[in-house]
């Protein structure tokens, strides 16, 4: 949790930032166009998405067995595997590994799971310096902010803001708003850090059980460098990221990069299967993988919600969400924003904590249309709404199920039910509504802040249909 205050404060705050909203709008429009350009053929796209879905479904069906297999192959390859139930355990494991290796400075590749466990602040609390090396992550680290998008963490910032930020932190570099020069400045700063870092930490996009391979998708080269230059590499990932076979990777990679940023492929795709071997001249002496649960096995146990674990974190749902484009990521207050956040975060953290996210959705379905692995996000969000107002929670329920049930609202729906399930009562109700139409104010209530209230018709369709002679059966 972050950015303090309540969800509605954050929403109002975000809606009030005109420049930010413009940034999000133009960025999302661009991303949507680029993705569409990568998938010109609907039929081919449908087939590819079928494959994506099938691969991920297979991974989940066999999840515990694939994790055991992954552990076996990685261990055989010389990569040590660690398991963590939650953020605390994951942080402990990582800090112990760093301390054992006397590592004082860490350079990080981009990893949303490390955001999830708030690794940076934990390590800094233990006297270990952490440097984000992905340019976007580096920028928000300097600004002391959190990512506003899972793929493009600094997308809310203009180049002017970034120029000022860099100048403030590195006054020795000349001030510039030229993007190429800014990038070169960052290159200089970060190169030295890579050169000196004691350990590298990265995320994982796919972990291949068959071969014991960790895959990293990236454009900058920082992932490859943080997993090669320092003597120690620690990768961290959620337990759901495993796939069975190496042959599962190319189609997922294809879907991932095209869906995420509209790229045919990213500049780098790293496949790490071993630490440095005898005779090899670079690469880390030791590689570790931390497998994080953090609520995932609980989600796995709920068959009606499990599909959320298919997610490959492309962010396409976010890019196409009409609510996200208005708000940006910070309003959500969680690590994952947008549709994936509205569905995943209440499952992971509990409805009592972040159940309000389920209201940040019009159920328009744009996200489901573009999801490369066909996660039915609106359906899941709708199910969460049901869980959040559940009358009686049972052992299969999520944490905080029923916690959003409010007496007034639930009575309202009871009255609604009483009227609408009984045709005779409905007839009386509809007569009253239409006959008192003039009494309904045009400008009252939350609806009317931005629109006129609709006025009921003089007579109902039931009446008109009867008069026009349409048969009743």
């Amino acid at each position, binding site marked *: 949790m972050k950015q303090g205050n309540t969800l509605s404060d954050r929403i109002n705050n975000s809606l009030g930032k005109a420049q930010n909203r413009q*940034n999000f709008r133009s960025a999302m429009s661009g991303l949507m166009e680029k993705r569409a350009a990568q998938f010109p053929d609907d039929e081919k796209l449908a*087939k590819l998405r079928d*494959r994506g879905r*099938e691969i991920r479904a*297979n991974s989940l*069906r066999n999840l*515990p*067995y694939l994790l055991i297999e992954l552990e076996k192959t990685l261990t055989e390859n010389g990569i040590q595997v660690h*398991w963590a*139930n939650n953020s605390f355990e994951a942080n*402990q*494991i990582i800090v112990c590994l760093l301390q054992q290796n006397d590592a004082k400075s860490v350079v990080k590749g981009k990893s949303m799971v490390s955001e999830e466990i708030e690794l940076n602040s934990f390590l800094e609390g233990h006297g270990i310096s952490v440097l984000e090396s992905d340019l*976007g992550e580096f*920028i928000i680290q300097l600004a002391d902010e959190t990512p506003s998008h899972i793929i*493009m963490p*600094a997308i809310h*910032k203009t*180049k002017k803001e970034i120029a000022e930020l860099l100048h403030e932190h590195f006054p020795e570099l000349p001030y510039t708003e030229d*993007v*190429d020069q*800014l*990038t070169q400045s960052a*290159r200089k700063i*970060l190169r030295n850090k*890579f*050169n000196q870092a004691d350990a590298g930490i990265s995320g994982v996009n796919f972990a291949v059980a*068959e*071969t*014991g391979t960790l895959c990293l998708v990236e*454009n*900058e*080269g*920082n992932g*490859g*460098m943080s997993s*090669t*230059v320092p003597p120690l590499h620690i990768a961290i990932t959620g337990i759901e990221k495993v796939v*069975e076979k*190496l*042959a599962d990777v*190319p*189609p997922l*990679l*294809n879907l991932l990069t095209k869906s995420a*940023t509209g790229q*045919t*492929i990213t*500049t*780098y795709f*790293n*496949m790490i*299967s071993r630490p440095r*071997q005898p005779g*090899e*001249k670079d*690469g880390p002496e030791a590689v570790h993988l931390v497998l994080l*649960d953090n609520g995932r*096995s609980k989600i*796995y*146990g709920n068959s009606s919600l499990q599909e959320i674990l298919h997610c490959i974190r492309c962010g396409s749902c976010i890019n196409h969400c009409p609510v996200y484009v208005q708000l940006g990521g910070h309003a959500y207050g969680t690590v994952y924003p947008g549709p994936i956040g509205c569905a995943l975060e209440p499952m992971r953290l509990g409805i009592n904590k972040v159940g309000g996210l389920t209201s940040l959705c019009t159920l328009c379905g744009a996200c489901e249309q573009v999801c490369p692995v066909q996660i039915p996000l609106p359906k899941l969000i709708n199910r969460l709404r049901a869980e959040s107002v559940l009358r009686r929670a049972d052992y299969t329920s999520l944490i905080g199920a029923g916690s959003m049930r409010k007496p007034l609202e639930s009575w309202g729906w009871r009255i609604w039910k009483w009227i609408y399930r009984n045709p005779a009562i409905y007839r009386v109700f509809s007569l009253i509504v239409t006959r008192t139409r003039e009494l309904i104010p045009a400008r009252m209530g939350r609806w009317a802040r931005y629109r006129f209230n609709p006025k009921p018709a003089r007579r109902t369709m039931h009446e008109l249909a009867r008069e026009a002679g349409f048969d009743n059966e």
Partner: protein
Amino acid sequence: MSRAREQILSALQQYSENGGYRGIVKTPKEEGLSKEDRVARITQMMEAVHGEVHRLLDREWMKWINTELPKRGYKHILVGSGDIGKIVNVEAMDSLQIHSYTAEIEEWKDQLFNQVDVSITSTRGGIASTGSLVIWPTSAEPRLMYFVPPVHVALLNAEDIFESFEQMVIEQKWSKEMPTNSLLVSGPSKTADIQQVLAYGVHGPKQLVVLILG
């Protein structure tokens, strides 16, 4: 924390169907591109992401190195200890200073990071559909040759260009034995993290030159 291991696995096993591998929706057919088509495609895809591509006859590449690198003002050239390294060491013109990656990285990190202008490497192959170089670093051509120098010149045999990544993985039976590290490289290092503006060379090479041979 093996306790976490048991807890996670038992929580999952309780609900896993273990339905077995139900088979993947069929692999889409490759287009069946000819060698020349594959060269054309990979060139087009590479150039679209700011890669520089030249088609050369087999032994012309050294001539290209000797003409182009000095012309572009590069001096410090990094090679591996394989065939390419040997040729460069023998045939490079005097104005080029050749460094060979023969020591472990810890012994000369500063030089690699701060001095080398260009690395010249081989590749295992290429992928036409995505415009990618396929790289399996070895002790003769270690991994950092591909990431650290500002310019990377890669030699690619036209014969080794596959239509898709999937085809290559399956036909070459990668799953039998993966190398320590393998890598797909598609263009120079880039970022769009500053206001969506594309900029090159944020961490890895600013320039990628692919010499397609044969």
